[in-house]
Structures are given as structure tokens and as C-alpha cells.
């Protein structure tokens, strides 16, 4: 079903409004009387300054470059459409969720060269109103580089491009120019979807059909995705107040979007309000939130969040709204004159099934409204799943029906996903980098010798049937029946959060891989900063890939640095809504022919349980 904003049947209505706009222009002309001064016409033989000619040439060049990357998005069959922008030569393009939700899983995209390409949905972010699609058929698409939207200043020039009113029959984008009217704007969601946090406001003309299209800076870099405007009583046409989702927010979601999932935004699990003295204070906090477990309490003063200082409730909502569910971000709070710096795992805005239903209901998303009152969208129940446990739900007719063969080849319907094909693609990519040097044999047991300081030693025996950890105080063992594995609720040794089970999962993942570990999915990119003590301001520069696996009733997370191909963190969750046991790997060195982390720090909650220095790792021949 085409959504209300973009359907072609609405074009006639838009057209009538456009006529009214022309009438306004005509009025301005008619209003002139004999006393009116008019603009000076240029005298003959005017010397145009070189700087002006250079500037003009630069602008022409930027527009030519930028428009080549701008996409006209159409629903197959012409039921509606919007705009988009290519961000990679292999065809990945950004658009709005409210454009693609009306267009379906397969769509058609026109470029300024006049050619039409098939495209497929990749990932969607319904709350942030972002969709990632992939154009098919070329590996040399023109694309636009992504800029740094935090560098924008009020008054900077900017270009909006796209297909307003679906005017272009040859797909050549419309270019409008304006300035940055506002930054760090907050626009309330409609219900729980389409929240524009920390967005960019521009007076460049943005009209229906522009949705999903790029906002470029003066250098032709994408700084935002145009998606909504303030309209009210004048009908749904530009009134000089358009909003673009900041590209810096989208960068944080890029890994999530490439995962093919229906991704959710984050909530702290706490609500804030600005108090009489102008400070931002915690007014509510869920006791099953990570923020609560890290020590945040009612009435604490919020000082900084996500690398930004927080002075107003809006400022907090702006900062929070740009983060994906599951990220671990820095938070600074003050209590009784003392300042505390913590890292907090963020919960999802929606319950597990709620978002899937809203996103896949194939209903047009609600129209954004101006204001829905106070709250920061916290309606969390602490459910931290992404909904991949269910069996794939087969619709009555195959989801690929009617798709061209080369589109159907890259589309796979599965509950919780916009397109499961891309999740598999990312799983294989990460695994490929992790096992690039040499793949460990499945079923092979490991024997590890380690030092734990003070001249004390420890050993570990890890296999398909369990794990045994020898510590100076005695042995701890986990036995797993390979036929009916159960590893949940294993908290031993005491105070570790489940170290033995975590070690067992480490070996299982490295040996059996993404296909053999259990139910596994690629979550996206997450910051490593909470594990490695990076300075808060640069925590977003520490992104690594995250794979989530379920085995034996427990959830494990594996953080892989795709650059180095190293596994950096393993997390084992003995129970839901509890702190995991964290294994943090560092100092990779060669031992017995392959790279192993020589340091393994084990953390649980706010404490380091133990740090192991690995001295020897032996991998035996695979057991039968």
C-alpha cells in the first residue's frame, strides 16, 4: 500500500497547491506600485571578478557530481515513490522508511542518466525513518561521499536534491538551494515511529517526493536525508522549514542497516526532566535497566551522555535519539557533588514484536505530527532480543513473487528482518575476516595454560562437551550434552558472571563458526569503547562488528574487529536482564602457528574478575 505522503494519486492535489504558490509570486509582482524600487540591471561591459567565476564553476561542478548520485525511487508498478542517494559504488543507497514502506521489498530506481535500475530493500530503521536499499546491476554506480554533519553551522549553504512531486519523467533530480536554518533540532515521533532527533533544518525547498533524498553541503557531501517539514495550514508544500536526518546519526546505524534487520533505536531506561535550577535530573529509572545496574538513580543529575554535555531535556533527547539499541555509550552523572563516569548498555525503544508489527504491518506509517507532549519515548520492558528466534514466517504467497529473478536472488523474507539475505552476507563477511589466516577445525578441543599474577597459574580445557577451568582455589567445570546442550544460568565461578560458560562459547564460536555455533545473526557495528576504556569523546571511533548467537538457551555476543580480523570481546548472558560475563581479548601473538590473545580480561558488572595472561594454547586433533 502506498503511503499517504508519496502516492501518485496525491500528486493532483499537490499540483493544485503548486498553482497557489505561483499565484503568490504573481501577487508579489502585482503589489509593486510606482514607488517601488527594482533591482539594478547590469550595465554593459561588466567585469566579473575571477572569484565569482571560480565560485560559479565550483557550484556547477558540485551539482553535477551530486546529482549523479541522487536516486528517484519508485514502487514497482508506479504506485508512488520518493528519493534516495547512492553511497557506495556497489549500489547501496539511503532513503526514508516512509518511502520504502510504501514501495515494497523490490523497487525501481532512476538515476540522472535516465536509466532505471531494479533495487531491493536491505535494512530499515522505522523509528529514525531511514531505509537502506541496494541498486542492482552495476558495481560502478556514481555515489556521494558522506560528510560530517556535526561540522554544519547555521547559515552554511546546502543543496536538496530529489524528485519533488515526482516531477521528473527522465529521473533527472530537482536541485534546490538554501541555508542551514537550524541544527540539533528535535521533531517528535508519530506514536513511536518517525522520530527526527538531532536533525538539520533547512530553508531549501523540500516537498513531497523529496523524501529520502540527500541534503548536500557546499562540497557535495551528503550531510542529511530529507524527510519531513513543518506544514500546518498551508497544505503539504514547502514553507521554508524542512528537516533532514543527520548523516552522523545514520553512520551510527549503518552497520545495523546493512544487517538486513528491522533495527530499533535506544532508550536509557530512564526519564529525565529539567529541574527548577536548570539541571537535567533523572525522574524515573527502570530497575532492570543497565543504567540502574551501573549505579544511576532517581534524582541524579545528568551531566553528559553519548559524548555530549547535557544542559536541557531536549539536548538529552537529541543525543539519545541518534543511538541504536544495544550500543554501550558513556554517561556522566553527578550526585552529592561527586561526578561518576559510566558506560551504559542501551535498551530498545520497542518491545520485541512491537516494532516488527509496526514495520511489517504494511500499513502506511503514521504521519508525523508536531508534538505529542512530554515523554522521551521510554516504554521499555527490558526485552533485549531482536526477534530472530522465531521460525521464518511464510506468507501465503512467496514474498519473492513478481520480483525479477536477479532481485529475488538477493531477497529472503524472515520475521524480524527487512531482508535476511543481507544478514547472511554480513555474517559470512565477518566470519571470513575472522578466519582469514586459518580456520580452526570443528570439534577440536583446546588446552590453555595461563598466569593470573602473583606467580599463580591457571589452565583451561575447552571442548564440545564442556569446559574445565582450573584456578588456585580449585576446579570449576561445565558439562554440556552435545545432543541437548543447556548452558544458561551458569554463573560459575562465583563472581565471574559465568566464566566457564563464556570460555566454552568462545571455543565453540571459533571452531564451529557462524554456521555451527547455533542460531546466529549479525547485529551491526557497535562501539568497543565500554570495554577498552576509550575516552568518551572518541567512543564512536571504536566500532567493531557484532555477531549474536544463541546456544543452549543462552545468548552470546562476539565483537570482531574486521580490520585486524581479531575477536575482541565475548559476552555470555547467563540470564536475561543481567550483566554478562565479559571476556576482553588483547595483545594477539603467534602461538603454535596461529594468533591468540595473550591477555584475557574477565569482567562482570562493574568489576574485573580476573586477568589471564595466556602462555600456551594447544589445539588437539578434532574429536569424532
Amino acid at each position: 500500500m502506498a503511503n499517504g505522503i508519496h502516492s501518485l494519486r496525491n500528486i493532483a492535489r499537490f499540483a493544485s497547491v503548486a498553482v497557489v504558490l505561483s499565484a503568490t509570486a504573481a501577487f508579489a509582482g502585482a503589489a509593486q506600485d510606482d514607488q517601488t524600487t527594482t533591482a539594478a540591471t547590469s550595465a554593459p561591459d561588466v567585469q566579473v571578478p575571477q572569484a565569482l567565476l571560480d565560485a560559479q564553476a565550483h557550484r556547477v561542478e558540485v551539482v553535477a557530481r551530486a546529482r549523479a548520485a541522487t536516486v528517484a525511487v519508485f514502487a514497482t508498478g508506479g504506485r508512488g515513490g520518493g528519493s534516495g542517494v547512492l553511497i557506495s559504488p556497489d549500489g547501496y543507497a539511503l532513503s526514508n522508511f516512509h518511502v520504502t514502506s510504501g514501495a515494497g521489498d523490490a523497487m525501481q530506481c532512476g538515476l540522472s542518466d535516465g536509466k532505471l535500475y531494479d533495487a531491493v530493500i536491505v535494512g530499515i530503521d522505522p523509528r529514525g525513518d531511514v531505509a537502506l536499499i541496494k541498486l542492482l546491476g552495476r558495481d560502478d554506480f556514481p555515489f556521494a561521499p558522506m560528510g560530517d554533519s556535526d561540522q554544519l553551522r547555521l547559515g552554511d549553504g546546502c543543496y536538496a536534491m530529489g524528485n519533488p512531486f515526482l516531477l521528473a519523467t527522465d529521473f533527472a533530480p530537482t536541485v534546490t538551494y538554501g541555508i542551514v536554518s537550524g541544527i540539533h533540532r528535535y521533531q517528535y515521533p508519530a506514536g513511536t515511529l518517525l522520530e527526527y532527533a538531532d536533525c538539520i533544518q533547512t530553508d531549501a525547498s523540500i516537498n513531497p517526493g523529496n523524501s529520502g533524498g540527500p541534503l548536500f553541503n557546499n562540497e557535495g557531501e551528503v550531510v542529511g536525508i530529507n524527510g519531513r517539514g513543518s506544514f500546518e495550514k498551508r497544505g503539504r508544500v514547502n514553507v521554508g522549514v524542512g528537516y533532514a536526518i543527520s548523516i552522523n546519526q545514520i553512520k551510527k546505524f549503518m552497520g545495523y542497516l546493512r544487517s538486513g534487520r528491522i533495527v530499533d533505536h535506544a532508550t536509557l531506561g530512564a526519564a529525565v526532566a529539567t529541574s527548577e535550577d536548570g539541571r537535567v535530573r533523572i525522574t524515573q529509572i527502570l530497575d532492570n535497566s543497565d543504567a540502574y545496574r551501573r549505579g544511576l538513580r532517581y534524582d541524579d543529575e545528568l551531566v553528559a551522555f553519548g559524548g555530549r554535555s547535557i544542559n536541557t531535556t531536549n539536548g538529552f533527547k537529541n543525543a539519545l535519539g541518534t543511538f541504536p539499541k544495544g550500543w554501550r555509550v558513556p554517561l556522566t552523572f553527578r550526585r552529592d557533588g561527586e561526578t561518576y563516569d559510566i558506560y551504559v548498555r542501551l535498551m530498545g525503544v520497542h518491545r520485541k514484536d512491537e516494532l516488527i508489527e509496526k514495520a511489517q504491518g504494511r500499513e502506511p506509517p503514521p504521519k508525523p505530527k508536531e508534538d505529542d507532549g512530554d515523554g522521551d519515548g521510554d516504554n521499555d520492558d527490558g526485552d533485549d532480543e531482536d526477534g530472530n528466534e522465531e521460525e521464518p514466517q511464510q506468507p501465503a504467497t512467496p514474498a519473492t513473487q513478481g520480483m525479477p529473478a536477479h532481485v529475488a536472488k538477493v531477497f529472503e523474507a524472515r520475521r524480524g528482518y527487512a531482508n535476511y539475505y543481507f544478514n547472511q552476507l554480513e555474517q559470512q563477511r565477518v566470519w571470513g575476516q575472522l578466519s582469514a589466516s586459518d580456520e580452526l577445525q570443528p570439534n577440536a578441543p583446546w588446552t590453555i595454560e595461563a598466569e593470573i599474577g602473583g606467580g599463580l597459574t591457571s589452565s583451561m580445557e575447552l571442548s564440545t562437551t564442556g569446559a574445565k577451568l582450573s584456578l588456585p582455589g580449585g576446579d570449576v567445570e561445565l558439562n554440556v550434552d552435545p545432543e541437548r546442550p543447556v548452558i544458561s544460568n551458569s554463573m560459575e565461578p562465583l563472581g565471574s558472571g559465568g566464566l566457564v560458560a563464556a570460555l566454552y562459547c568462545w571455543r565453540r564460536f571459533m571452531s564451529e563458526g557462524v554456521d555451527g555455533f547455533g542460531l546466529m545473526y549479525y547485529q551491526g557495528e557497535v562501539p568497543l569503547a565500554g570495554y577498552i576504556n576509550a575516552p568518551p569523546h572518541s567512543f564512536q571511533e571504536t566500532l567493531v562488528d557484532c555477531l549474536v548467537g544463541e546456544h543452549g538457551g543462552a545468548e552470546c555476543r562476539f565483537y570482531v574487529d574486521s580490520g585486524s580480523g581479531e575477536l575482541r570481546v565475548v559476552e555470555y548472558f547467563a540470564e536475561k536482564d543481567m550483566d554478562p560475563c565479559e571476556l576482553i581479548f588483547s595483545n594477539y601473538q603467534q602461538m603454535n602457528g596461529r594468533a591468540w590473545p595473550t591477555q584475557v580480561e574477565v569482567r562482570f558488572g562493574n568489576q574485573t574478575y580476573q586477568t589471564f595472561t595466556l602462555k600456551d594454547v594447544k589445539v588437539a586433533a578434532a574429536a569424532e
Partner: protein
Amino acid sequence: MRNVRKYRFRISQSLTIAAVAAVLVVGGSAKRAHASDLSDLVDEVQPKMVKIFGSGGLRRLENYQSGFLVTAEGHILTAWSYVLERQVTVHMFDGLRYQATLVNIDPVSEIAILKIDAGGNLPHFDLTEQPDAAAGTSIWAFSNLYNVATGDEPVSVQQGVISAVTNLNARRGIFNTPYQGRVYVLDAVTNNPGAAGGALVDRDGNLLGMLGKEMKNEGSSSWLNYALPVAAIYETAMSIIDDPNYTPVPVDHLATGRGGPKAEFPMTLERLGIVVVPEVIAAATPPFVDDIRFNSPAQTAGLLRDDLIMFLNGNVIHSCEMLREQLEYIDRDDTVSITVIRDTGGRQEIIDLTIIPDF
């Protein structure tokens, strides 16, 4: 008159200025240096801007508008509207909030001066500087349209060009406003909800004018984007600021009438024989006379169709709703004095009338 002359004198120079400005704008888009110039302009203007909150809040009746500081002591120039009717709060650019007092208003130019007590050294626009602007002059409009900015967030800025400098051809049925003076007609969509009272500046950050209220041409259903030139409102604004006894209107309009008890048998429009225009927007429909009953006291007094009622017994009236409210404080048998603005062949006349009810 001094300022009017100054204004006229400068028009001859403005053509050159406009041409230079146009060159700068074209050059500005690509060069980093120019881009930062614009940011500097924005940084310079923002501390002078305020967000104003007051009455309203109902559907299509926003409870916010814009304004800017015009003295170091805290005088704020803004548009006169229902928003200022009761308690007014002003948010400064840095997020600080003040209760403002209404110093005075001018219902013809529809300007108001507010005052806050925030020390004596506030950044402000100088109203005595009246740079010239003409069609083609590049402009930047600062306002809190749609109340997008809250707290310490900077107000929105839009860019455009003056399309025309002309007299506002306002009359009932076309533009519902008593103002018929000079305006800058703008090519940018500046006059949105909440934008009234915003500042129009030139490239150097000099104040050119004040954004007016939303105005719709009832004939063509088109919306006008415009600003009142500083020269057109300077004298009124300065009079209000400088002269505590300045009385374009009695300021105590809020106290009289409403302060006292309502009449036991109140006056009504029906009794006077006045039919006002239908209330399109509650509390914001200007009190134009739609019809006069035949042989009524209003007809006898000389009231005419299309008159705009400005004062009732000395109290300023700015909406049909307010007119009805104020009548409730007048006894049905009392004589009523009314001041109206009447359009007589393109000229505005202010006419005082006395209506004596029938017994």
C-alpha cells in the same frame, strides 16, 4: 519626519548596494571564507533574538512568537497579537527565562514593546540605524517559526531576497490588517506560525525590519511573506520606549472592563445593531463590521460596513471574541464610544463614534 527623509535620501545609494550584495551572495556559496562570514552573521544576530510565549495554545492558535532586543535595558520589539494578552515569558538565546511586562502597543502598525529586567547591558539592535534596502537586497530572517527552537536552542534563520518594497494594499477581504504602510515583500517563506516579531537583517547583520503576522490574501488564497521596514515603525517604537506617557492607546485595556464586575444586563452586538465578520480563527479574527442592522443605533451613529473596530470605550479591541467579552462589562443602557478605522477610497481615517442604545 527626520527619519523618513533619511530613508528617502538613501534610496539612491541602495541600487549600488544591492548590486554588490548580489555579487557577494553568488560568490559566497562556494568559498569557505564566505561561508564562515555567514556563520559570523548568525552568531552576531542570535544573542539579540528572543522567543516569546504567552496566551494561546489552542488549535491553530499558537502561544508563541518571536521578538528581538532593541535597547541594552531590555526593551523587546515584537508584533502585537493575542499572544501578549496575558502573562508573557521571554526565553533568551542562552536559555534564561524572564517574565516580561507589556510597555505599550500600537494597534495600527501592530507592534508591541515588551520589557524585561535582565541587567543593563544586553546585546540589541539599534533602531536609529536604518540601512536602506530595495528590491534585490539579500536578507536573512531570524524567527522561532513553528516553535522549532526551545530552551537555549538558536532560532531559525532563512535566506532570501526582497522582491518588492511597496505599500501594503490591505483592506477587508484581501488582507485583514489595519496596517497600510510600507512593507518589504520577501521571496522566502518567512511568515510562518510564530515568526511574527522576527528580525530581518542584511548581510552585515543590520536590522532592516520586523517580520509581520501571517497574512493570507482571501481573494487568491496566497500567503504573503513580508516585513515592516524599521523606518516605518521606528518613531512609534521609540515613542513607546522613551515616553512613559505615550498614549496611542490606553494600556490599561486589560484592567478596565475585565477588572470590574460584569454588567447584570450586559450590552450585546445585537442590541447595537452590529454584525461582525464570522470568527474564522477564535480570538484572532479582526473585528471588521460585516453588516449594520437597518434603523439600529449603530446605523444612527454612522457606523459602516467594513469598518474595523479598534477601541471600545477607550479599550483596544483586536478580535471579535474580545469585542463580545468587553461588551459584557457595559450595561445594556449605557452609551458606547467606538473608534474605527475606515478605508475611504484608499485612505485610512480614524473615526470616533458614539452609539446610543434605544430605550
